[in-house]
């Protein structure tokens, strides 16, 4: 038990340290980066809840981020702005204007409800078939978002979303997501799901109801993704369906895979490392361009480096940086081993 608390303390401590550091420095760019990092962390942890425990790669996750973002946006855009931002909005929704904090939670709940219906039949699939259908699900969600003009303003940018997300809120949600992901992992559902991840046949022969447990994890993951999307929407305040598609999917997947999908520690460390690398590369890119060292503009360094990092990880450390054990368990083992040795 104590090792779980140690893990929570270290991972939550990392987030709090980041917040304290950024607040102390008081530089606006850092504040934006740190807030984005915390939101990414929520999304990566949501994906870890499903992928890490079930062992099934899911591309659909970012689609549910979009569901949460649009839900929360529609519920919070001020009534007088709705005529402009969403001219075709259904009458029932026109008068609604909720507090963003309530709308963020509703965003998560709607994403979870959509996931609950859509994923129920899909969870019987394994391996490649499951991965392909999750990709199809992402495409379907994206198509709905780009075409359901009444609530999303179609492929155009939806603007007028009230700003409600600041660094402390994003960090608090990120810490809650860390606790939720760890609690789920150690719950009965999480443990049995991990058993099925390692060996589906053996888990089935023990009486594990695999498709049902996967479904639970998928719904919880969608809830967290919806919350993350809504948080992001209230941070960026205007977005289009393209924000919830392939680019974002691969960034979030990259963070999880590099850190190690099987552990919450991996999800957190991966998010920190990739965000750090991204932002420093972007800064280098900007510096190179403004110094005019090369004749042409330098673009795409971040994507190239992320791709190389992923390839390197998949070759040299396929399970990611933290493939099986959480940081708390690693430290506890080290400590007891040293005690045995002395």
């Amino acid at each position: 038990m104590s090792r779980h608390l140690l893990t929570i303390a270290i991972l939550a401590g990392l987030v709090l340290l980041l917040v304290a550091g950024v607040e102390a420095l008081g530089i606006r760019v850092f504040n934006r980066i740190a807030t984005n990092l915390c939101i990414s962390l929520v999304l990566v942890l949501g994906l870890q809840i499903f992928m890490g425990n079930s062992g099934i790669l899911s591309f659909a996750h970012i689609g549910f981020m979009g569901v949460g973002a649009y839900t929360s946006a529609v519920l919070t855009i001020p009534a007088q702005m709705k005529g402009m931002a969403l001219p075709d909005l259904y009458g029932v929704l026109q008068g609604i204007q909720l507090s963003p904090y309530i709308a963020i939670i509703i965003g998560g709940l709607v994403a979870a409800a959509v996931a609950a219906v859509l994923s129920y039949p899909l969870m019987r699939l394994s391996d490649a078939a499951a991965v392909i259908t999750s990709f199809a699900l992402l495409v379907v969600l994206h198509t709905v978002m780009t075409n359901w003009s009444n609530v999303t303003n179609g492929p155009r940018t939806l603007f007028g979303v009230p700003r409600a997300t600041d660094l402390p809120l994003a960090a608090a949600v990120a810490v809650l997501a860390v606790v939720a992901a760890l609690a789920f992992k150690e719950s009965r559902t999480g443990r049995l799901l991990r058993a099925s991840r390692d060996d589906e046949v053996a888990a089935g022969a023990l009486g594990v109801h695999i498709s049902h447990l996967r479904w639970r994890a998928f719904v919880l993951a969608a809830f967290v993704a919806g919350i993350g999307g809504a948080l992001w929407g209230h941070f960026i305040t205007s977005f289009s369906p393209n924000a919830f598609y392939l680019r974002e999917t691969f960034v979030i997947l990259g963070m999880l895979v590099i850190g190690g999908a099987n552990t919450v520690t991996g999800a957190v460390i991966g998010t920190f490392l990739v965000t750090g690398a991204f932002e420093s590369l972007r800064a280098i890119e900007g510096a190179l361009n403004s110094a005019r060292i090369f004749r042409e503009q330098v673009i795409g360094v971040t994507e190239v480096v992320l791709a190389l990092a992923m390839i390197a990880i998949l070759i040299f450390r396929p399970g990611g940086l933290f493939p099986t054990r959480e940081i708390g368990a690693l430290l506890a083992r080290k400590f007891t081993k040293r005690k045995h040795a002395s």
Partner: protein
Amino acid sequence: MPNPSLKVVDVAVEFSGLRALNGVSLTLSPGEIVGLIGPNGSGKTTMINAMTGQVPLAGGQVMLGDKQISGLTPRKIALEGLSRSFQIVRLFNNMTVLDNVESAALAHGCSLRVAREKAQTLLGEFGLSPRADDLGASLSYGDKRRVEIARALAADPAFLLLDEPAAGMNEAETEALLHILAGLPKSRGLGLLIIDHDMSLIMRLCDRLHVLAFGKTIAEGKADEVRRNPAVIEAYLGSEAARA
């Protein structure tokens, strides 16, 4: 109330036209140890797979008391009280030994705390306590087999079906395993079906033997009677030996 018996009635299994099992019947009662033996390819593993629902039946049925369990999914059959081990060990490799054993208890509805206690007791019985925190993948072959048996027992089964539990173990390990297995029917009231090629283990452990060859029963009965059965000797050693 004692558990009802497990009855396999006239079971047939086909793999694309090949009859792997052809009208085999077997009864396993609580508290007894039955050895399922036969030459390679005689259908022993298929028999366990058929009982636990891993392969579909082409005929016959499996009954638990008055209840038909053939046709149910492996999961439902497991919840009816049938636990098994696999010929090729199937551990949860990225989980610790303790988590491996706990998972079976959790799948059968134990609380987290009860599952932990049960798993720790079982690991103690199997001499695996020092390895509780090691990952499944890191164990030696013999240890893996023992973890798999401990895991099967954590489900509190009424019937335990073991597919070559002693394969890959050295003599001392086999001896220790024999000791544990021999005590199970009494201590837990379960019926034990065991496949193994180690005849000395089988002879010392089993009350009854059931011999398969080419998917059919060729002999069954008390261990020493079966051993003298000419059909069994022929199946194992060829017809020359039987005539000699």
